[in-house]
C-alpha cells in the first residue's frame, strides 16, 4: 500500500481548507482521503482562522482537484488559503498580439489562439503534470469547443491556464461579434 504509508508529522501541504464547523472539517478530511489526496486535520493559525478551530491541510498545488472533490460530494467550506505568502491567486492577465494570433498570459501560463478561427494554437508555461495533458486535449481545437481547464485539471497551473482560457474566449467572442 504505497500511498497509504505516510508519516503524517512530516507532511507539509502548504494549503488550508477552512470550514464553518468541526464536523464539516472531519467529513471533508474523509472525502479527500478517499479520493487519494494526502491531507491532515490541523488547527489553523490564528491569523488565518475563519469559521471553526479545525482545518484540513493539503498540498496547495492540488487546489483545483481538492475543490472539485469536495464539490462533487456536496461538502461546504469557507475558504481555501495558502499557509504562507499572498492569500489571493494572482489575477493579472496580459495580452500579446501577433499578426493573426493572440497570446493571453495569466501568471505562469500562456494560451495562444488564432484570432480568425478561434483555434487554440499553443499552450505554454507551467510545470505541473496536468499541463501536458491539457495541452494534448486542447491544442488544435476551437476555443468554444473545449472544456475549461479547471474542469479537467488538478493543479494551480491548470487554474492559471483557466484564467488565460476565460480571457481568451472573451476576446475571441468579442472579435466574432
Amino acid at each position: 500500500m504505497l500511498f497509504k504509508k505516510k508519516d503524517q508529522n512530516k507532511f507539509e501541504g502548504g494549503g488550508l481548507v477552512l470550514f464553518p464547523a468541526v464536523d464539516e472539517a472531519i467529513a471533508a478530511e474523509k472525502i479527500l482521503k478517499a479520493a487519494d489526496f494526502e491531507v491532515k486535520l490541523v488547527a489553523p493559525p490564528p491569523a488565518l482562522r475563519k469559521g471553526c478551530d479545525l482545518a484540513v491541510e493539503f498540498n496547495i498545488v492540488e487546489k483545483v482537484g481538492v475543490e472539485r472533490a469536495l464539490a462533487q460530494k456536496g461538502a461546504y467550506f469557507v475558504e481555501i488559503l495558502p499557509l504562507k505568502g499572498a492569500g489571493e491567486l494572482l489575477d493579472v492577465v496580459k495580452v500579446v498580439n501577433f499578426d493573426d494570433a493572440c497570446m493571453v498570459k495569466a501568471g505562469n501560463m500562456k494560451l495562444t489562439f488564432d484570432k480568425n478561427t478561434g483555434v487554440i494554437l499553443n499552450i505554454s508555461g507551467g510545470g505541473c503534470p496536468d499541463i501536458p495533458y491539457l495541452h494534448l486535449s486542447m491544442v488544435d481545437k476551437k476555443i468554444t469547443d473545449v472544456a475549461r481547464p479547471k474542469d479537467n485539471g488538478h493543479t494551480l497551473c491548470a487554474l492559471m491556464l483557466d484564467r488565460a482560457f476565460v480571457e481568451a474566449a472573451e476576446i475571441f467572442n468579442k472579435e466574432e461579434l
Partner: protein
Amino acid sequence: MLLICGTIPRADAGLLIGKARFDGGRLRVGNAEIPCTQGTAALASAACAVAKHCRNSAPRAVFAGDTGGGKGSRLLYDYVSKNLPRINPNILLMHYILPVMGLMKQVCAAADKCDPRPVMMADASSMYAAKAAGLAAQFDIFTPDLSEMEFLADAEAVHPAYISRHLFRAKIARIDELIEAAYRQKSMAKTVIVKGAIDHIVQDGKITFTLDKPDLPQLEAIGGTGDTISGMVGAFIAAGFSHYDAAVAALKANRKAGECARATPATKVREIIAAIPRALNHNENQKGKRA
C-alpha cells in the same frame, strides 16, 4: 550519464524506465512511444538531439504516467528516492512532477548518497518543489522563465500562482532586482538560466551572460521551448561542457532552431526539436569560422 525524471500525459503508463531515443519525430523509452508535446517529452527529445550531435550516449529516462492526479508523480518520487544511489547518474534532471515538498527532500537525501553527488538540475514543478521546500541551494542549475524568476524572488510563495502582485508586474529591466532578492533569500541554484525575450545566465547571483538574438518573440507562445533549453543544457553537461558553456550553447541552439523552423505562434515544439541538429551544426560552423 544524464538521468531525466518526469511525468508524461498518459494516465495508464505506470513507470517507464530506459534509454530515451528520438528519431526526429517520435520519442521512445523502451517500447513505449511518447507524444512529443510540451513538458518532459520535449525536454528529453531535445536532450537526445544534443547527445547524438555530441556523439554521446543517449540520456536515461524515468518517466511516470500522470495527468495531474499525482499517483504517477508519487511513483516517480518513490523510485528515484530508492534507486538513485544505485543508478548513480552524473546529472539528475528533475522535471514535470506534482510538487510535494517532503518527497523532494527525499530525492535530495538520495542524491547525497551518490558518489559523487550528481549535478542537480530542476526545471518546472520540480523547481517549484525545491524552492518551496528550501532546497534551492542543493541544486546546481535551475531554468526558470521570467514568471518563475518572480516566484523564486518571492520568499513566501509556494507556487507561481501565489506570487505577490508587485513582483508579477516586474519588467525585464528589473530582472537584476529579482535575481538579487532570490539570491539573498537562498532561492537560487548555483547557476540559473532565465529564459525569456532576453535570456540570462546567472552564476552565484551575478549575471554572466545575456542573449537576445535572433529575436523570436513567437517562441514564448510555443509550449515546450523552455523545456528544450533545459534538456539541451543537461545533455551538453553530460558531453563534458562546463555549466556555463552548456547554458550558452543551449540558449543559442534554441533560438537558432526556432529560426531554422521558421517558427510562428502555431508551430509545434516537435518542429523546433527537429530543427535542433541544423541549429547545432550552424552554430558550430559559426564558432569554427570565428576561431
